[in-house]
């Protein structure tokens, strides 16, 4: 019986972690290519609004999810044109992207406030899903969760096991050197930015289609910023991003229970706990592992203009 309670908790933890995994793994790839996109929050919430709107119009969760990813991709394309194409300042462009995304999401979502949908369907395999203790955790999630886990593995494999991944990391390390070798710095960076945007949009769509299946302005509640912090403190390593996201999810669930139990602490303080705990844990993790070289992609945030 306690096994089932534990499973219940773990399922909610994973659900809370999923949007961070999605947005974080996308941003990780972007930063590995040397681009710092601070617009994750904006792309996420725009993805949430568009995803919910599309799903309401079509009645299809799949189309909603695709719409969310597409919305994030669209915003990131704008960011990519500015920073990769026109060599605009990445910090300023990213911050404006967040503001733009917040505004656009309010516009798109205005007529959907207060509506509800059924959450995204969960996997159900007779026999397996009903397994005591682990069935729901392993075989009873919605498609977003499986996709998020799959993406972590895929990005890890891509970065460390493929030639294109090597080229991407090299470009993130030194764009001048890689350009001199004839590698296509701007193309790789632009595609990375698009991938990051789609991931962030998908993470937002997960919130409005599966986690809490309704639209509310500002519903991402800073998760985009947490995803950004996760990438840094995870030392740009995919598995650590997932671990950090799970920790955040765990702290979120824990503080909800603490609020329900009425600990007498202010609710706002408890709501802040997941954010504090995640950052603290990752800071501790990233301490003392620096033997030399730089953990961050060395060209991160630096504008690149090819020589004539």
């Amino acid at each position, binding site marked *: 019986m306690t096994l089932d309670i534990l499973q219940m908790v773990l399922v909610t933890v994973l659900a809370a972690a999923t949007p961070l995994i999605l947005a974080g793994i996308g941003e990780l790839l972007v930063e590995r290519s040397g681009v710092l996109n601070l617009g994750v929050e904006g792309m996420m919430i725009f993805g949430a609004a568009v995803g919910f709107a599309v799903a309401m119009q079509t009645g299809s969760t799949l189309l909603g999810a695709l719409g969310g990813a597409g919305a994030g991709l669209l915003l990131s394309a704008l960011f990519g044109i500015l920073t990769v194409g026109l060599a605009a300042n990445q910090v300023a462009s990213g911050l404006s992207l967040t503001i733009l995304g917040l505004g656009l999401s309010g516009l798109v979502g205005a007529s959907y406030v207060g509506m509800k949908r059924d959450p995204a369907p969960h996997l159900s395999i007779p026999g397996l899903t009903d397994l005591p203790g682990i069935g729901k955790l392993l075989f009873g999630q919605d498609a977003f969760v499986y996709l998020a886990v799959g993406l972590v593995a895929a990005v890890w494999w891509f970065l460390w096991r493929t030639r294109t991944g*090597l080229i991407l990391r090299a470009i993130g*390390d030194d764009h001048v050197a890689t350009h001199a070798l004839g590698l296509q710095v701007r193309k790789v960076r632009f595609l990375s930015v698009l991938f990051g945007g789609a991931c962030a949009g998908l993470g937002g769509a997960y919130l409005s289609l599966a986690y809490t299946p309704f639209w509310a302005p500002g519903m991402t509640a800073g998760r985009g910023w947490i995803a950004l912090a996760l990438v840094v403190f995870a030392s740009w390593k995919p598995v650590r991003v997932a671990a950090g996201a799970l920790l955040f999810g765990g702290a979120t669930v824990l503080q909800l229970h603490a609020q329900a139990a009425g600990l007498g602490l202010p609710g706002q303080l408890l709501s802040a706990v997941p954010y504090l705990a995640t950052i603290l844990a990752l800071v501790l993790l990233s301490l003392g592992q620096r033997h*030399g*070289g730089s953990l961050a992609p060395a060209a991160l945030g630096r504008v690149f203009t090819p020589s004539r």
Partner: protein
Amino acid sequence: MDAAPSPAIGIPRNEGPTPLFGAYGIVKRFGSFTANDGVDLEIRAGEIHALLGENGAGKSTLMKMLYGLLEPTEGVITHKGDIVQLPNPEAARRLGIGMVFQHFSLCENLTVAENIALVMPKALSGKALAARIARLGADYGLHLDPSRPVWSLSAGERQRIEIVRCLLQDPSLLILDEPTSVLTPGEAEVLFTVLERLREEGRALLYISHRLDEVRRLCARATILRAGKVVGACNPREETARSLAAMMVGTAVREVTHRKRGTPGRERLRVDRLSLPAPGLHATSLRDVTLSVAGGEILGIAGIAGNGQAELFAALSGEIRAPSPEAVRIDGQPVGSLGINARRRLGAGFVPEERNGHAAAPLMSLSENVLLSRYATVPLTRFGCLKLGSARDLARRVIDAFDVRKAGPDPAAGTLSGGNLQKFVVGREILAEPGVLVINQPSWGVDAAAAAHIRQAVIDLAARGAAILVISQDLVELFEMAGKLSVLNDGTLSPAVPSAETSREAVGLLMGGASDHGSAGGSLPPVHEMAPVPLPAHAH
């Protein structure tokens, strides 16, 4: 550019065999600036061909076009007599052209194997690639550990990566841009052996260097560029270093002259047992550095980059404070805990190694750059407001005195060529008539004429009674300028020895870390005590 080269641009048919690679009538314009103007170059298999020229003569532009990084505005490139297009480096590599860059094109945080895999035509498994690196390394004496990250390697090792990376693609033409500028004499010898071996194998090599003695040793043919045009071709072995330099510059290069050295004056710069922890990740710690320079004296500090030069310079200039005020003294005054401007007010001047970004702010104009280092000692402000006119006058005086060539009246520092910017930053300090001048790599990457000008100005300043500390890894330069020499190796400074009493070989050996007779830290022995200099280590 996009149109196929018109047949009107005939390929001159020279007597002799068809060259392996040819470039004919190459013109490259950047806006209104013509970097290459009708350049012809023929490279034959089995030769090391030298490309000589001053900074800004158009050597790099020409090389970049041969490697597919730039497209010629006009002209054709041929391979075995056929006209070829080189739209990108990939295409150049397919034709068998490899390039070893002067500023290595390596990613510091990737491993050796990863850096090499970047340009291999198709993905090789890590093991297969490591095996090929090892085989090639054993074959040519270019040993590399494929799993080491590049940031942990010395300049010589980094260059080895670049060479191995080219050789793995079995090139028929290897382009080398200033390959010895970062190497110790010993490392350079190893490189020469490899290059001669490659020539024996029938490959063509295009060798760009400022060091004319190297060119004379390696190359049987040279093409000389001046202001974007070919001004001559010769056999460097039949020329002297001076006649080659004269061809590059167009006029005879002045030889550096020393005024007669009087007895050294009083001690003006003193460093006492200065120890500093490494200030950063890739930095070197200084250990018990002691030195003394008297007025009228030039002390040269030899050493390979990365052995504490940057740290020593920073400690002398005040960019890093010494642990105690007495560790550094200028004219007897303890300055170890003073900042850079306080030291300037005591009559010191500093010229850092990196022109762009350290000695000068590349995006700011020359007059603004004068302000940056001189406002502390010259009244260039009034009530906190800049006196731009005075700054411009001062900049003009530097420009006139040091023959700085530039475009426009007051251009951004970054638009000057390397040699001219170096003349400017050196001149800026020398015109202040410092009593103590610390100068790091005075003529790094600077052509012969500008280097001679800079060295002469420094020598003249010493003759006027200043104490001068020159940090350099160019031994020719040090022996030309300095009266005394020390070697900085791994943060430890050897005792100074009069340069007339030691030899380049002895200094080179110490630079490589060989401490003589096993004594800790190492010191420069007088020549007659030197053990015979071992021949360059061919086998590692």
